[in-house]
């Protein structure tokens, strides 16, 4: 690596992969609970498994983003990180806080956890994805602010490029919008309204900036295409992401008690949201086709191309599928949402973090690329996880269509649980595919331990 301080990225990436493994294990547990309702009850009830599954996802992606930022910012700014010690301290604080939170979920009832952690002082708990106890939320803010201070100081004193500025903007946005997790009005409509300012404005707003910057960084490195070309793409992509994504929040405001005009605004703007993702696909393939060098790390190129395609399919196509108000009237909160959630998170955010890890990890370990053998295993991991995710999405989509028909459209609509029974076959198939995904993940981890001679540019 070019700068010593980039090494702080390594523990972040290792933690990210570890938590990713945890996320998938809990996904498998919960997937089984869909069809075997009392599996592991009362030790791990469904609601707890779900909370752990989604919270681990968020936390490992945050670890990934942070690690990526600590690697990327010094290289782009062309100077050492302002304070590597601060970055390492934050790593341990975040890891301990994250682990304690997950243990809290698993070991004590949620209500007890709330009592123990001062939820009576400022009630922030009990909301989907934002279940973290108050001290954890405060911890996230401290870690994020310390990171932003560290990175901003580095950029202020160093070279400013489109990539590091877009990344910083995205990370600042991430921290700022998270503050809405502390606002928990008693009015349920307002509560949901601002809850989306964290959830939607993260994944369909500022995270897209982070993703765009990371993808652009890796593409510059592995293709050798001119920075000017890549930066122009990046600008257009983030402009499109913000134009469509900000007001696109309206697609969550159709049926929660907000004014009716959101059905128009949400539909029109969110219908544009696939555009930036489609541009990312074009971007990745175009840059790779115009490459001016053969980078020895072919696995990283594969992950980057995979990000382009899967982000467009998962976030773009599966998002558009149910974003228009007249369609969403039937589909909201069904397995269609779950299908979209799975492929979008995997395609956009899991894959972009894995792209970054794939490119940087060999360098952090002192070589430009892993051995041919290790890369082959890594690529197998890519295909297994990606194909498994495609099928998980398809099965959930099938389950969703059937569920909506039985529960909301049929002449004599069924109750929720009765409809769930009817789609059990798809849940079984999803669970089996989940095992394939898990196998892919294990292979991925194994690939880090395969030795051999460093691959050279062909």
């Amino acid at each position, binding site marked *: 690596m070019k700068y010593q301080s980039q090494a702080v990225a390594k523990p972040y990436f290792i933690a990210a992969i570890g938590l990713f493994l945890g996320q998938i294990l809990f996904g498998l547990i919960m997937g089984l609970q869909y069809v075997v309702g009392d599996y592991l009850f009362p030790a791990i009830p469904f609601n707890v498994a779900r909370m752990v599954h989604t919270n681990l996802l968020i936390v490992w992606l945050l670890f990934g983003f942070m690690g990526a930022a600590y690697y990327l910012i010094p290289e782009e700014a062309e100077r050492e990180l302002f304070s590597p010690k601060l970055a390492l301290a934050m790593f341990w604080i975040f890891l301990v806080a994250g682990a304690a939170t997950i243990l809290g979920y698993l070991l004590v009832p949620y209500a007890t956890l709330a009592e123990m952690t001062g939820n009576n002082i400022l009630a922030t708990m009990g909301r989907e994805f934002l279940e973290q106890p108050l001290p954890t939320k405060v911890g996230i803010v401290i870690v994020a602010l310390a990171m932003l201070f560290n990175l901003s100081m580095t950029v202020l004193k160093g070279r400013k490029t489109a990539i590091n500025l877009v990344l910083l903007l995205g990370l600042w946005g991430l921290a700022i919008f998270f503050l809405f997790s502390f606002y928990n009005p008693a009015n349920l409509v307002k509560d949901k309204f601002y809850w989306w300012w964290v959830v939607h404005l993260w994944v369909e707003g500022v995270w897209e900036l982070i993703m765009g910057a990371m993808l652009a960084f890796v593409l510059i490195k592995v293709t050798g295409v001119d920075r000017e070309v890549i930066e122009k793409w990046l600008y257009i992509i983030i*402009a499109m992401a913000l134009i469509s994504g900000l007001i696109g929040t309206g697609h969550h405001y159709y049926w929660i008690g907000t004014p009716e*005009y959101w059905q128009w605004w949400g539909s029109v703007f969110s219908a*544009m949201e696939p555009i930036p993702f489609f541009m990312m696909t074009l971007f990745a393939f175009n840059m790779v086709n115009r490459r001016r060098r053969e980078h020895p790390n072919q696995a990283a190129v594969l992950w980057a191309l995979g990000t382009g395609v899967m982000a467009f399919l998962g976030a773009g196509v599966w998002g558009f599928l149910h974003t228009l108000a007249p369609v969403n009237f039937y589909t909201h909160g069904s397995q269609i949402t779950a299908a979209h959630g799975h492929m979008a998170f995997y395609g956009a955010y899991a894959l972009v973090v894995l792209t970054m890890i794939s490119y940087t990890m060999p360098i952090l370990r002192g070589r430009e690329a892993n051995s041919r053998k290790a890369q082959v295993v890594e690529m197998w991991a890519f295909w297994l996880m990606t194909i498994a995710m495609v099928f998980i999405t398809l099965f959930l989509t099938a389950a969703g269509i059937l569920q909506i028909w039985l529960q909301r459209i049929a002449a004599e609509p069924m109750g929720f649980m009765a409809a769930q029974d009817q789609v059990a076959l798809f849940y079984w198939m999803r669970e089996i595919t989940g095992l394939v995904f898990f196998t892919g993940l294990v292979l991925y981890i194994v690939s880090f331990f395969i030795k051999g001679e460093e691959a050279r540019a062909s």
Partner: protein
Amino acid sequence: MNIAATLPASHDQPRTLPGDLAIWFFIFAELLVFGVFFLAYAFARARNVELFDASQLQLDRISGAINTALLISSSYFVVRAVDRIRHGASHACAGWLVAAMTLGGAFLVLKLTEFAGKFAAGITMSTNTFFMFYIGLGFFHFMHVVLGMIILGWVAHKAWRGGYSAANHAGVETGASYWHMVDLVWIVLFPLIYVMH
């Protein structure tokens, strides 16, 4: 001075896109959003012609017409500004841009007065579908005028300080292109929402 650049574009010469390519992506994206909204308006109106016609009568067409004149004139001023910089006249270019921004400012004042009148009459986006479009689209376009003025202001400032020349003035063309888009959208929006019955 580059003589070729000072000559008016002839139709025999190969024509290139004025300004930065990136702004054209941006312009197309904006037109797409407005286009979808215009289509949505058309469909919503077709399903409820009477309500739309009755609500439309409450609009101030004179104010809308003046605003149309203001924006078209401002677009002409922007054309003059581009022409001036092609001749290397930086200060004249900045002057025309400021004139265009002044008309843009007048548009905003008039539009705000119009909105204030509607709000005073108790009309909001929730009154009915017509007013949802009138206020929503009007406000969305309003914000584009504001953004357009910021861009023109930036360009005018740079032009005044001699940042452009007859040979190198892509920035002026970029700003001008965006401003024409803002004007163009209004030219569709005005007849569609204020006039067409």
